[in-house]
């Protein structure tokens, strides 16, 4: 009897059920999408923050002081120590290598170029093919410095071609396609580089070109690494030497900028890795603000969705006072009447909630795809939680209406007097 009542109610009152169901579908859909976006936005924004460039720098352990003023390196090229280029692919063997967006070695040398003396030539990787074990990967400045713009073409990493910084090119009166003499060798200018930084006054060349000018094959002055990190907390700042056993493991296995620096030092011999505080320290604050904002907005969305669902449920029930009156006149107790309506609400919430969850997941994916070029996946764990919330909210919406309907005198209800 109970089941039949519920079944018939769904069969005969399609319009009302559809309206309430639509509210639940929309509410749950919005809630799911918002929860998914709010929980995932941290990751997505963290990736976007990598557009600020490298957050770690690796230098030789026994290095002399940098003599840089406004980006011009005054250090004698023979001075100081070097890293070995052959060690670089080992970065791919690190525990957190998946968090490494890219790295670029640099080797500045000072050269004379027809008419201009003491020009810095920066040797680096543009998009170099490297292999570690059986893994092949590409890395270089194109991956870690997205604001570097080239008019013309990027040089090949194994070529002798170079890029001219835009101010230097203007000063020398050279353009793409020209040949320039660096030392005694002619190099083709394949593009003009614009970075808005000191590179605009420099020549940027493949690393091998700088090494051969310097006469030190395999030498690298510094290595810039861009890594996705977890915002620093008090635990991250602890000295790894003071940590014991499991604590050290936890520190080592968290992608803090400090632990990634520690691992870089491990994988590259005789090196010292340091966070670039300008980039690394500010990521955390920006990330925290954006995450906090999205969390609060997700809360507002949940509130709005809950209100919409409970309002729809209440409205649907108000319309059915006559039915309640009839049931009461036929001798049904308030418990069994409430049971019927709650069962209907449960069914609606589960059905509508499932459809809404699927819709919300699709919506979240679309948001991720169109805004961040990567997917926002909705965790399946969320499904029972969302359904439970949907059931609770529709119960809450129905409860008041049911209470009032049950208390209402059946005589008035049947006469249609509200």
């Amino acid at each position, binding site marked *: 009897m109970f089941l039949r009542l519920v079944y018939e109610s769904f069969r005969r009152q399609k319009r009302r059920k559809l309206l309430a169901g639509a509210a639940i579908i929309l509410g749950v859909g919005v809630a799911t999408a918002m929860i998914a976006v709010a929980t995932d936005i941290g990751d997505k924004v963290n990736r976007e*923050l990598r557009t600020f460039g490298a957050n770690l720098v690796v230098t030789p352990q026994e290095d002399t002081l940098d*003599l840089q003023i406004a980006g011009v390196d005054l250090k004698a090229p023979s001075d100081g120590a070097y890293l070995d280029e052959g060690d670089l692919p080992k970065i791919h063997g690190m525990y957190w290598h998946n968090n490494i967006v890219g790295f670029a070695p640099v080797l500045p040398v000072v050269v004379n170029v027809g008419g201009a003396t003491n020009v810095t030539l920066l040797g680096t990787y543009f998009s170099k093919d490297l292999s570690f074990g059986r893994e092949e990967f590409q890395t270089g400045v194109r991956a870690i410095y997205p604001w570097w713009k080239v008019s013309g073409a990027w040089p090949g990493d194994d070529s002798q071609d170079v890029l001219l910084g835009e101010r230097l090119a203007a000063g020398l009166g050279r353009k793409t396609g020209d040949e320039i003499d660096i030392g005694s060798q002619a190099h083709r200018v394949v593009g003009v580089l614009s970075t808005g930084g000191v590179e605009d006054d420099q020549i940027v060349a493949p690393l091998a070109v700088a090494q051969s000018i310097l006469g030190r094959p395999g030498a690298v002055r510094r290595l810039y690494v861009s890594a996705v990190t977890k915002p620093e907390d008090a635990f991250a700042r602890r000295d790894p030497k003071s940590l014991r056993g499991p604590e050290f493991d936890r520190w080592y296995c968290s992608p803090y900028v400090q632990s990634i620096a520690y691992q870089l030092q491990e994988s590259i011999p005789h090196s010292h890795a340091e966070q670039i*505080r300008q980039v690394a320290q500010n990521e955390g604050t920006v990330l925290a603000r*954006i995450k906090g904002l999205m969390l609060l907005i997700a809360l*507002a*969305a949940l509130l709005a969705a809950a209100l919409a669902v409970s309002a729809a449920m209440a409205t649907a029930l108000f319309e059915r006072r006559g039915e309640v009156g009839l049931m009461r006149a036929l001798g049904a107790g308030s418990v069994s009447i409430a049971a019927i309506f709650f069962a209907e609400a449960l069914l609606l919430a589960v059905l509508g909630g499932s459809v809404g969850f699927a819709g919300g997941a699709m919506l979240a994916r679309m948001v991720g795809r169109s805004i961040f070029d990567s997917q926002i996946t909705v965790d399946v764990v969320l499904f029972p939680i969302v359904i439970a919330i949907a059931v609770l909210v529709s119960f809450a919406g129905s409860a008041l209406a049911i209470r009032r309907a049950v208390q209402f005198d059946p005589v008035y209800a049947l006469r249609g007097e509200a």
Partner: protein
Amino acid sequence: MFLRMLVRAAVLRRGRAAAALLAMMVAAAVTTAMLNLYVDVQAKLHNEFRNYGANVIVLAKNGQSLPGHALQTIDSVLGGNGVAVPFAYVVARTVDGQPVVVSGTDLDQVRKLDRWWSVTAWPIREEDALVGTRAAALVAPQGQAFDLSFHGRTVRLNPVGTVRTGSSEDSRIYLSLSEFENWTGVKPSTVEIAAAGSAEEVDATVQRLAQALPEAEIRPVRQIMEGEARVLGKTHRTLLVCVLLIILTAALCVLSTLMGWVFDRRRDFAIMKALGASERLIGGFFVTEAAVLGAVGAVVGFGIGVAIAAWIGRVNFHAPVVPRFAVLPEVLAGSIAVALVASILPVTLLRLVQPATILRGE
């Protein structure tokens, strides 16, 4: 008569009217809060990004010094909307003849500009120096006072603190500008500026600086500007999607409540019709009722929404979101529109039904 009907309808059915009004208010509040946030969040996030330090650099051309009035000119162009810090550099020698970069600057301003500097202690007195961690290992491993010479003139400095940044600052020694100028006679060659505002505002600042200081080169720092634009753009677009979804949900909530409210009163409708009221009058009555409800809900909701936005601003950005009254007409129009739709729909449906059927309670 019309007015009296409106008032009596609201007073006599307090419960349902209050429920509809509540839904209206909540929806308007949420919408207001979201619109306020959406407009203001850009400015708030721009502020956060100023922690990244300078986004504009003023450089003297060809390695010269900047003219003496440069800093005042820059400050007047900025007009308080930013921090400008002068830097002067020389390469000095230590006692062993090792070269080291020494910089004279306004350390109080640096503290504001470069908040990521990890400094053990900021210098207070003139002869105090802030030493980069790598430079400290060379010049003052035990933290003792040390001598530096530049063009035959020697100065004795007291390293009160060290600075760690992970970039070239670690190899430098920082002094107060006046002490630096007394010693070397070199004037600042660089001014680093953190200009506040959106990308367009910063661009405008760059233009004005270029006009005010033709003898210097003005360079926007693209690393900072582009990263900021990109992260902000994506956040803003995500926010837009979320705000639209929330407003849609809020509108739906109002729609279903109001529609229920009007449907619920089909007996009033039938009685009026049976008593000979024209359909236009009845329709007008219901529509006016809904519009008034929408307007009242919107105004009250606006107040609540502004408060919510201010609270979110305080909690998340530690600065309240300034209420934007420009949003009020939009919220008002939106609320009334939704209320109208919510009343016109059931009224059109009711029109098709014979009053007798409704009055019989079917």
